[in-house]
């Protein structure tokens, strides 16, 4: 934990160093706003499967928050460290590199809270159509669900990053992954609007728990019982992804140490 905090501190200092960049990054997360504009024009003719104007606004603004709080881009750093050979230094330290990358992935979150918190308050005050459940309990559960979503996404990205041990460009795998994530998580289109058969399949995949689940939670569409169940499922996925990650890690190290840094 001490090691994590030291790594977090250093990454946080980097974020401060790059503060302008973080704001720009935040502004580039516009996909939900574009989707919102599209759906609003469609919804003008009447609700789509129960989703009206207000629902779409509440959905996509929640998605914007979830994406900001769970998105991460450390695979770019992993990729360059692997190709330039500086990963070797990490392997020679008495700390699993996972701790470093997790700290790095989390480091911009406080700054995002500082910006998104006030922005959300303003939106709640001035956008009468925005219907979120902001009871203390619900907000607490929302934050907990964000942690689970972040861990699932972290382990997915870290595992994809590890494929860099075998292929030179793990980033292209990441591109393919992002496409799948955007569709299957509810980031692009609410899962409710998919045909029921597709939706049922998506419910059994981890993606829903990284986006749709926290969004539905914030919108007040879930009972406390189903929220707790959802959080439990999130951590089951975290456990599964972690096991997979450790397996890939061990094999990757064997590959790395056979072929060379």
């Amino acid at each position: 934990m001490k090691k994590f905090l030291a790594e977090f501190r250093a990454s946080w200092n980097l974020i401060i160093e790059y503060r302008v960049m973080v704001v720009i990054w935040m502004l580039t997360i516009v996909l939900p706003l574009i989707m919102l504009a599209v759906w609003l024009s469609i919804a003008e003719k009447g609700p789509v499967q129960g989703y009206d104007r207000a629902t779409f606004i509440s959905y996509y603004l929640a998605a914007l928050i979830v994406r900001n709080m769970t998105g991460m881009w450390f695979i770019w750093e992993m990729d360059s460290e692997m190709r330039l050979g500086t990963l070797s230094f990490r392997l020679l330290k008495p700390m699993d590199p996972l701790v470093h990358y997790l700290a790095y992935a989390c480091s911009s979150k406080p700054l995002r809270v500082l910006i998104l918190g006030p922005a959300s308050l303003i939106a709640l005050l001035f956008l009468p159509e925005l219907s979120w459940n902001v009871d203390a309990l619900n907000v607490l559960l929302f934050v907990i669900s964000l942690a689970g979503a972040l861990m699932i996404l972290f382990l997915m990205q870290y595992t994809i990053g590890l494929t860099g041990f075998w292929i030179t460009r793990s980033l292209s795998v990441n591109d393919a992954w992002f496409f799948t994530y955007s569709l299957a998580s509810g980031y692009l289109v609410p899962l409710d609007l998919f045909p029921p058969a597709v939706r049922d399949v998506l419910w059994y995949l981890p993606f829903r728990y990284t986006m749709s689940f926290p969004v539905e939670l914030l919108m007040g569409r879930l009972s406390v019982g189903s929220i707790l169940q959802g959080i439990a499922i999130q951590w089951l996925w975290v456990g599964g992804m972690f096991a997979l990650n450790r397996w890939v890690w061990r094999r990757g190290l064997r590959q790395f140490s056979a072929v060379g840094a």
Partner: protein
Amino acid sequence: MKVQISVRHLSKFYEVHQKEPGFWGSLKAFVARKYETVRAVEDVSFEIQEGEIVGFLGPNGAGKTTTLKVLSGLLFPTSGEVSVCGFRSFDRKPEFLRQITLVMGQKNQLIWDLPASESFLVNRAVYEISQGDYFDAMKELTDLLDLGGVLNKQVRKLSLGERMKCELAAALLHRPRVLFLDEPTIGLDVTMQARVREFLIEYNRRYGATILLTSHYMADVVALCKRVFVIDHGRLVYDGDLEALVERISPVKYIRLVTQQPIGAEDLSRFGEVRSVEAFKATLAVPRERTSAVAAELFERLSIEDITIEDPEVEEIIGRIFTEKLLSK
């Protein structure tokens, strides 16, 4: 004295794929890759005692870096046994990692966009260094490496020499007992090279640390290492005293003389091989065992102003080892 590093019959081979240049070459490589086995290190054995400083010599691609990587635990040996501080390197146990360090002169472990002091704080936590030890180590390293004023500047704004000093400090904060240094002085100017050498000697003296280093600068090797390994095409061709190596490879010494009267090659040729001659100065190559006799004779026959006897430059000798394959078995 205890054996700190022991290597027995170490070999490391890898497969690399080959690609012909150009578009067709790429296409061919895409469809059917040709692999070739590179024998980076082959059947190398040696032992290093605690506190020794050993220089690793060899041309580019001879297997020096590969050996250092195997020793530090980054590469798994194809065959053979490697033990460092009593650990099998490749297990990379935390207790092992806390006792070693690897510095690669061409690579950077400091956080590029932050001051070096931030990297030190991370290392402090990672190596679980106590507040007191950290303070002592920082003070000592700041003194020895003259780091004042450098620590709080962004790493990317440092000069190469300043950065290398910070790299060394970051790598030694946990006071490792075994140092693997791959070209630690590369790209540094002469003063800075000398500074790094002095530092390494001092570190070795204070902590009895074992150091294995590679360098292209002979001055590093001459100043630091009594013992050297020579590696060529993955094979260890020499392990022993640097001086003995010089004697073995070069059977001659140089006599440099300054005379009171002008001299010519014809006056000197009977004393030894004339390497250079100009007016009042000349250099002769003389078989090692005859140097003092020849020098005495020169004094007798010529009006000598000054005379010196020197070994050939080590660069020259090492160069000869590889170009003339003098040590190949």
